[in-house]
């Protein structure tokens, strides 16, 4: 049949009902890199429009959360943060945790909130969650800057904090966190298109997860205080990221290579599954959203 076909065209691409099992299609994503950057710009710029405080809003939330945590967990409940000032201890955890939740929340409704655009024009859908992760990096940068300010303040006050050789690897940790949030977010966004139940789950799920992620306490403490449930934290890849963050930036707690390896593995698996499900959903989600 094909030999008799009267055409000299080389097909550029083909649309079929079935997808390849796994496709990231990085080449296509690269072609649309300008779109990625413009989405990032849109996300960052439009947040400030018509607000008086502008980017300051990015700072207020982590600061007040840290203050609250310091009062409740450290002053009232008496959780010890060792030699590190509790406020700085909490701020470090919250800054990194915020990046994760921002990525997760931002990507978990990819299909729902972009149905208008997705229903009208094609571009690699993964651009949207990617842009969320990148634009949240900007937000993280601002929050991290305020952390640095307080860090410097406490440092000159003579607090026992310091850096170590591992600090250099901190950016990698953030990338890992971003990929984990992206993978999980893509997974959830795909399920939400058909079954809205999952968007409810995400709301309180994230909140609960924070308490299991060693954000406001050292990992060692939970194992010591409630050994029966300590495994919940020990199996949570996010807890290792938070704990390692504090080790890298404040030189407290412990760094567990095994734990980091485990986190890395989980991230890979979650990201793989996320892309897999996302691929399957993007083709025809517009019919079910």
């Amino acid at each position, binding site marked *: 049949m094909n030999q008799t076909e*009267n*055409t*000299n*065209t*080389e*097909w*550029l*691409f*083909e*649309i*079929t*009902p079935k997808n390849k099992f796994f496709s990231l299609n990085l080449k296509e994503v690269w*072609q*649309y890199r*300008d*779109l990625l*950057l*413009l*989405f990032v*710009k*849109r996300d960052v*710029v*439009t947040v400030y*429009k*018509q607000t008086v405080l502008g980017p300051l809003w990015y700072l207020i939330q982590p600061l007040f959360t840290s203050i609250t945590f310091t009062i409740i967990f450290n002053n009232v409940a008496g959780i010890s943060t060792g030699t590190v000032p509790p406020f700085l201890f909490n701020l470090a955890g919250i800054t990194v945790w915020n990046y994760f939740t921002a990525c997760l929340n931002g990507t978990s409704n990819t299909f729902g909130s972009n149905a*208008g*655009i*997705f*229903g*009208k*024009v*094609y*571009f690699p859908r993964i651009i949207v969650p990617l842009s969320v992760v990148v634009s949240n990096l900007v937000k993280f940068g601002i929050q991290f800057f305020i952390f640095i300010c307080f860090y410097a303040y406490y440092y000159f006050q003579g607090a026992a904090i310091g850096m170590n050789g591992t600090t250099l690897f901190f950016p990698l940790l953030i990338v890992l966190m971003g990929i984990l949030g992206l993978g999980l977010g893509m997974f959830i966004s795909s399920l939400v298109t*058909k*079954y809205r139940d999952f968007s409810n789950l995400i709301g309180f799920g994230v909140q609960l997860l924070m308490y299991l992620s060693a954000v406001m306490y050292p990992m060692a403490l939970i194992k010591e205080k409630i050994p029966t449930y300590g495994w919940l934290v020990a199996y949570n890849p996010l807890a290792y990221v938070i704990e390692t963050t504090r080790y890298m930036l404040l030189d407290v707690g412990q760094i567990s290579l095994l734990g980091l390896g485990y986190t890395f593995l989980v991230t890979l698996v979650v990201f793989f599954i996320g892309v897999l499900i996302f691929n399957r959903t993007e*083709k*025809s989600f*517009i*019919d*079910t959203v």
Partner: protein
Amino acid sequence: MKDIILKAENISKQYRLGQVGTGTMAHDLNRWWHQVRGKENPYLKIGDVNDRSTKGTSDYVWALQDINFEVERGEILGIIGKNGAGKSTLLKILSRVTAPTTGSIKFGGRVASLLEVGTGFNGEMTGRENVYLNGAILGMTKKEITSKLDEIIEFSGCERYIDTPVKRYSSGMYVRLAFAVAAFLEPEILIVDEVLAVGDAEFQKKAIGKMQDISQKGGRTVLFVSHNMAAVKQLCTRGIVMENGRIAFEGKIDTIIDKYLNTDNNVSSIKKYTFNEAPSSEVIKLLEAEVINDKSENKLDFLINEKIGIKIKFEILMETDDIILGINLYNNEEIHILSSHQKNQIQNYNKGIYQTIVWFPGNFLSEGFHFCGVAAMSYKGFFRVHFHDINKFSFNIIDGFVENTARGIVYKGKFPGVVRPILEWDNVIAI
């Protein structure tokens, strides 16, 4: 050798009707279970033909079924059909917004689709920022946009407001700017849905001109869906008519438009109302309307200089002296050409069936399809409309290049205008 740039093979699209709920989950699981065992999707075998007006028996419906066609490079293909015939679904599949249930489409070039103008416009951002964003969404790179930015802004005619957030724009300006971005896309295949339905007449003209440019000068391929027969006729070279999710026929644009308008249920020179659908009040009920010539023969096609009669048959349900009949006339570009009603024919009706005829003179209307509807009103006491039908039956006027028309004997070219009366031209005098 034909240079095929797009080839669609056996495309079908199935939709599930009703709501997503627990039932869907059961079907999803069943489907998945079949897939795991290597069996085919059990729900593909069922499904009704896509006909919106009849009640189906299945929860699944085929929005598209066995669509096959090819498009050559540089061709402007028109896709026409009634509402719900599957045109938009087809466009969505072609522009990769959704995937077909079966079949495949092969492309020999870069595709850009314009199912809407201004996709992704953000009200908070300025016109300039939105040009970049929208352009990138449509597949342009930042560099391409920058090189065309001045042209885009000029084409839109929004220069003065380009650094103002678009939420402050008037809707017309918004559309102009949005279309301007799309007009400077340079894909090999452009897919356009009825975006021309927006904007004022001047802008529509500009838009159609731009699309012609794109295909003629750029040698690019355009797929164009529209209800606007005038635009389709002007733009396209070839066309596809869709009906109930299938391709009814395809061919040269002029022939298929005529065929489409003729086979369309709405295009009939006679309308007999069934008991249930008849427009009526407690006073009057419309029974039948037909288009006739001066020999009282029912006809669809008339020469331009022929007299055309509309015969209206109606039933009076109670004694009255207060009924006035009227008609509405539209042309195939949906321009309301005229309405007319009985002026001074007030009469006393008893119960019974009546008929009347209203005549259009020859040499009055222009060529093409015309669509008619009957209305009935009361004026005494207070004004009241008993019914008001539009586009229920039609006739076609043909310019047969006969004698005694407004065309005269010399001119053989295109003759624009919605009416074509013979006007009186005085003799030329020297002054």
